[in-house]
């Protein structure tokens, strides 16, 4: 990814090399030698000194590097042998196989640069939201018309049966105040004002009264309503508050 390390720098990190061939290529390039005529002893020496360093700092995965070291040493020794008089001599360069591998590897390094470029270009993608799109069929519309509140209730009850009873009770405890709160919201949407007694749908229930009252307190607290009372113990008149100006801004 970066330019090769500068010559003065003695040590390199293992992470810079993707493998023994990568290291070997680096050394060949650094020494500016011809890949078809690699000075094996010089390169082998540098290769081994790198390995020594790598072993000293305890880098892992160096087994593969040793494997190539063995190959290099073998080639070196073959080079030292007196050249036999052989007609096939030129095809018998002990370095040939290694050179082929290096060139092959170099080709893929180039390929991987091209792929990396592609990856960079694809760094950003603008994609459509992954979602099953369906057609708004007329039948679909009718579905809502055909339903009545009992379908709602049955569905709800089915869901609830799959939940443990402790959770149901939990839900119920909340529901009463919430229900009154919702009723309040419904009223303020529908009419200018309404009375506390409108919130009571079951006359004889103390819970109804308590919940309705707590709901009013909540709605006052969250600045959803204003309450009026004409006389002591009289019915409470409730009016919705205008939405706050900052919210308006948000919309426009």
């Amino acid at each position: 990814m970066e330019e090769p390390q500068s010559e003065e720098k003695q040590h390199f990190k293992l992470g810079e090399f993707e493998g023994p061939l990568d290291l070997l290529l680096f050394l060949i390039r650094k020494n500016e030698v011809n890949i078809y005529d690699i000075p094996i002893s010089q390169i082998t020496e540098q290769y081994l000194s790198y390995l020594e360093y790598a072993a000293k700092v305890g880098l892992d995965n160096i087994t593969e590097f040793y494997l190539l070291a063995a190959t290099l040493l073998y080639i070196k020794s073959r080079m030292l042998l007196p050249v036999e008089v052989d007609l096939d001599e030129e095809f018998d360069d002990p370095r040939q196989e290694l050179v082929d591998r290096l060139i092959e590897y170099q080709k893929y390094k180039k390929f991987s640069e091209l792929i990396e470029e592609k990856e960079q270009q694809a760094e950003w993608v603008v994609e459509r939201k992954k979602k099953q799109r369906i057609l708004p069929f007329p039948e679909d519309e009718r579905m809502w018309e055909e339903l009545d509140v009992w379908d709602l209730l049955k569905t709800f009850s089915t869901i609830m049966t799959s939940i443990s009873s402790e959770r149901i009770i939990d839900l119920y405890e909340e529901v009463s105040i919430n229900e009154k709160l919702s009723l309040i919201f419904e009223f303020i949407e529908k009419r200018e004002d309404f009375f506390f007694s409108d919130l009571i749908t079951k006359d004889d229930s103390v819970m109804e009264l308590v919940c309705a009252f707590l709901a009013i307190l909540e709605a006052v607290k969250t600045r959803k309503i204003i309450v009026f009372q004409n006389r002591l113990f009289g019915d409470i008149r409730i009016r919705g508050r205008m939405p706050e100006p900052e919210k308006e801004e948000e919309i426009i």
Partner: protein
Amino acid sequence: MKLEREAALIEAVLLLESDPVDLRTLMKVTNLSKDVILLALEELQKVYDTKEHGIEVVELGGGHLFTPKVELWEFLKEHYGKKNENRLSRAALETLSIIAYSQPITRGEIENIRGVSADGMIKLLFSRNLIREVGKKDAPGRPIQFGTTRDFLKAFRIKSIADLPKLDELTEDRFELNGR
């Protein structure tokens, strides 16, 4: 017939979104003014109205979206309609019933009950104008609370949510609870 740059941008946004996009979202995303957007939408609609196109820009649930033209539905139905319809309706109905009976309720609470993400369903119910935001829960993060709309009351032919049948009115009541 010539789409301006602005229309092209809005065209792209409509493609990226799978649900109707309202004006506010369009303004936020494109940084264009309301008027420009409205004009561009009109232009887009004109382009796609031509009979050569198989898709069109329609206004639905307070927003605009791309949708296949109605005359093609019969060819698309098998793969993109019916099959998913049941699943969709059940999930939608479930979510709606939870919201109706437990309002105000946050998305998290709904997901807690149904055990699956409620995002899509909430959007769907929103687009059908059956639910709305009614406030924020007094809890960490102040999550949005949902409730039903007047359209919901209309659709289910009840006067008010106080008229929703109670659980104990179900004959096969298996709860020992005596109403609320």
